[in-house]
């Protein structure tokens, strides 16, 4: 993996060796394992994978929002401030809860949550929530209302809908309000966990393009999604997660045209635009993962070698027998 180098054009966020375990009465859930990932300003990194593979746990770990039965190891360095006298990077995994709540969540890191309906305070209108957030982040009493309208328009919310209470909003409208709230402090890092669930396609595209514009304006964006088409639309690079690990991380174009990990290839084949064929078999239980490659039971390239956990040796996939696309072409008989 790349070394962690938080210099000027280095990553804004550098996650190294992130591991999350949940203790259950009779088992341990391996939710995230030895995960390495970094996001630069102006870069949009997507994390994709089947439901339950650990994507949301990754996001929650970065925000210190994991439940009490979780154990976290590794580091997640966030660059804060700029210039020569900037403070040393903050390790999100080692931060005290107070510091996370005051300095990080909402301020340095904006979270667009998965189920916004539950994340919104039910007793205030969208406008009050938004204005309060803007006021807390440096907007004046005079300019906050205009800024609120502008943000609402940005996320595709009718300004009139801002005067409703969260329970009066449809799932899609609540999602857009949550997005506006996350964008309000103009955080340098945006974490979007399934930001398009419950939206119809035009709104999905609208939300994705909005994230892309924030990114082009200099924000670093980590987009967590089960929606491959969404990742393809806006991401610079895509990390494919399987059974708690990233198994391939590649530039978007390369991943979609020439996946190297057999799981990435199988997942892409499930798209209705492609073979519409499910990945054979079922994901393993995260309480009972094999010692070697967790995909082996479903993989048609598996050999004895796969009993050992594959590393990201040379290529971009953690696999003992990655698909080699150039070779596939070379093997076509003359």
């Amino acid at each position, binding site marked *: 993996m790349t070394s962690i180098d938080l210099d000027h054009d280095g990553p804004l966020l550098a996650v190294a060796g992130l591991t999350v375990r949940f203790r259950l009465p009779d088992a341990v859930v391996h939710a995230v394992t030895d995960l390495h990932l970094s996001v630069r300003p102006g870069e949009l990194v997507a994390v*994709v*994978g*089947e*439901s*339950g593979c650990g994507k949301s746990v990754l996001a929650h770990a970065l925000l210190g929002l994991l439940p009490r039965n979780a154990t976290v190891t590794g580091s997640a360095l966030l660059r804060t401030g700029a210039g020569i006298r900037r403070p040393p990077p903050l390790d999100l995994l080692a931060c005290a809860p107070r510091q996370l709540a005051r300095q990080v969540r909402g301020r340095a890191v904006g979270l667009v949550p998965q189920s916004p309906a539950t994340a919104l305070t039910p007793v205030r209108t969208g406008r009050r929530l938004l204005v309060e957030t803007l006021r807390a982040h440096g907007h004046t009493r005079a300019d906050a209302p205009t800024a609120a309208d502008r943000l609402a328009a940005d996320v595709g919310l009718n300004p009139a809908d801002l005067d409703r209470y969260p329970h009066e909003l449809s799932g*899609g409208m609540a999602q857009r309000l949550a997005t506006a709230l996350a964008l309000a402090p103009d955080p340098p890092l945006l974490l979007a966990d399934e930001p398009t*669930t*419950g939206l*119809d*396609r*035009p*709104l999905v595209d609208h939300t994705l393009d909005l994230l892309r514009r924030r990114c082009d304006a200099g924000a670093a964006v980590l987009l967590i999604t*089960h929606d*491959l*088409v969404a990742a393809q639309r806006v991401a610079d690079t895509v990390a494919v997660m399987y059974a708690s690990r990233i198994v391939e991380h590649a530039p978007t174009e390369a991943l979609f045209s020439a996946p190297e990990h057999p799981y990435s290839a*199988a*997942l*892409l084949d*499930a*798209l*209705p*635009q492609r073979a*519409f*064929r*499910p*990945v054979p078999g*079922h994901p393993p*239980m995260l309480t009972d993962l094999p010692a070697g490659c967790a995909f082996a039971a479903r993989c048609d390239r598996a050999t004895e070698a796969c009993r050992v956990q594959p590393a990201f040796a040379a290529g971009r996939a953690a696999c003992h027998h990655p698909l080699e696309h150039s070779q596939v072409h070379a093997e076509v008989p003359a």
Partner: protein
Amino acid sequence: MTRPGLAAGVTRPGLAACQVSASYGTQRVLDAVDLHIAPGETVGLHGPSGSGKSTMARLLALLHRPDGGHVSIDGTPVTGIRHQVPVAVRTRVAILFQSPRAATDPRLTLADLIAEPMRAIGTPPEQVRARTAELADTVGLTADLLTRRPHAVSDGQLQRACLARSLVHRPGYLLCDEATAMLDASTQAHVAAVVGEFQRRHDAGVLVISHDAALLARWADRVVELP
């Protein structure tokens, strides 16, 4: 199989909405719309948000009564909503929703979730057990998942359980309202494959509601557009 209550007056097999209208308050979402799903056929229903796709599904599933027009099942007009019609009629149509969490009782294990519609009509326990196991296998749920409650499984796993539940009475018509919208590509393709297999075996008619034109192009035999 004989279907009491449907034999008389059968004209054209299929699940049909005939000139149905529906409104919420003063807003009319469906205005004299026709839709027909033949046995064995997969019809896609496409249209923008708010165009009445889910309303159409709810009318066809007898969850709502239309303001105008009627629903007919295999040629027999149905008057009344679900609990007012004979079991043999209402079990002809099953519906699968987008959000499995909103549609399930959080206190039930996945096994109970699947078994409940059988228990509700007094199916003997050993038959319930056997059919539950068979359906779990069909949708790809392993035994360890069946004893869990919804909070302890993923959306994909819960939707598989809902699919099993919807197939309990071997419905003649299955309505999938954005049923795969929140699922990953693999789980989506798997749900579609399970529905397709059930459809082939039982000559069932399927309605697939989706925003996703690529999905409908792949899954449906024909696509109906709601304005």
